[in-house]
């Protein structure tokens, strides 16, 4: 983009021409819209943005953008994103995925990514189910939800991603609802601009396997308190809320992890001295 024709990028500039294969009604459509709107606001050119994902319905996002993308294996978006960002600090790196990909198989990486605090934004589209594999409980599914794989429900306490993120060290934690595309977009912009590891949990109904989640639109409500920079306070809030509070929960002050990386690969290395007897 030269100075002469420097144009304002719109959300459309960040969309590819590949049509999503999601079920009509899926919350991910709105989230994709919010992501591209946020990118237009942040205004890094598409070639300087990398969208990294694992496996699942929401992990299909990279190919629906016009940015560089990596559709990796199940649960491993965060290490992919981490390796890329650490070695290419110049790029804007965004990781996307779902609740199964991120909190089940990806749980270990999730925890350590929060801890490591590399400057990344992680967008989790939480539909509280495994959609791509036809409807099994995920870590965030309520314990009584009946399914073919776990008849009668898991009986297990759902995973609490926001609290885990806070405890592990995430620097920015928010929850939004897919139906609020503009609010989600604004939150994504803030997350991107906030240094360190930013987590946005987006409640995103799965109309095929959890049609009852269409009711979420009626249940979500903006949080009645401002974001806090007190990690413990934030944890207490989210441990005691109804799970439908939306907004930015926590903005922290940890310095992002970004060791110097500026190798000159053409320069030869010489460690001979240490091998001489």
């Amino acid at each position: 983009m030269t100075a002469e024709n420097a144009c304002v990028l719109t959300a459309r500039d960040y969309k590819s021409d590949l049509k999503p294969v999601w079920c009509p009604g899926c919350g991910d459509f709105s989230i994709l819209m919010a992501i591209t709107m946020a990118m237009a606001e942040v205004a890094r050119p598409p070639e300087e943005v990398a969208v990294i994902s694992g496996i699942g319905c929401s992990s299909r996002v990279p190919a629906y953008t016009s940015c560089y993308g990596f559709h990796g294996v199940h649960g491993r978006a965060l290490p992919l994103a981490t390796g890329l960002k650490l070695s290419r600090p110049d790029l804007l790196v965004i990781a996307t995925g779902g609740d199964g990909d991120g909190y089940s198989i990806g749980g270990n990486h999730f925890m350590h990514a929060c801890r490591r605090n590399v400057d990344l934004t992680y967008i989790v589209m939480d539909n509280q189910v495994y959609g791509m594999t036809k409807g099994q409980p995920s870590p965030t599914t309520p314990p009584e939800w009946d399914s073919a794989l776990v008849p009668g429900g898991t009986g297990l306490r759902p995973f609490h991603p926001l609290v885990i993120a806070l405890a592990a060290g995430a620097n920015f934690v928010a929850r939004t609802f897919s139906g609020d595309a503009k609010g989600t977009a604004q939150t994504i912009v803030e997350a991107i601009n906030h240094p360190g590891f930013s987590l946005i949990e987006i409640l995103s109904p799965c109309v095929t396997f959890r049609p009852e989640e269409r009711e979420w639109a009626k249940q979500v409500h903006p949080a009645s308190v401002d974001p806090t920079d007190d990690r413990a306070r934030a944890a207490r809030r989210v441990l005691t809320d109804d799970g439908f509070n939306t907004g930015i929960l926590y903005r922290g002050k940890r310095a992002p992890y970004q060791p110097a990386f500026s190798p000159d690969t053409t320069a030869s290395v010489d460690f001979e001295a240490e091998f001489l007897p």
Partner: protein
Amino acid sequence: MSASDKTNDREALLAHAYAIENETAERYQDLADQMYGVNNVEVGDLFTKLAEIEAKHAAELATEHGAANTSMAAADYAWSNLESPESIPLGEMHYLIQPHQALTLALAAEQRALKFYTEVATQAPTDELRALAREFAQKEAEHVALVREWLQRYPEPEQDWDVDDDPPVQP
């Protein structure tokens, strides 16, 4: 944030109107794409037609009122609802949605747009603005009438409209 707060001058009103029509056209087109993607051709065609109508409206705003020369930051658009008043929310879709249901949603969307401009028409500070808003409201009323007419061509869906004997596929 009410409609009148952000449409206190001609440029603002035009910018809003232009944005509404463009977003709506885009939304209808996206929905049409979704419908074609699930082989719901009848509804896809309906949305395509609606997209064309909205796009035409937007073009008229540009040629007759110079709307394309206005500009406003995206964040300045403050809709009373979560989305642009005239857009069908993405979450309302269903892969088996029937024409009657789709048009019902379109009707509601057009009615929201009508309401938006009607409010501006009563609350705008100047005569010129109120007139402009009335013009836009009139256009929306025409859309409402059109959608009502289309609705009559389609019966209400059967009880089993969303029955699919095949289980979901694991891609």
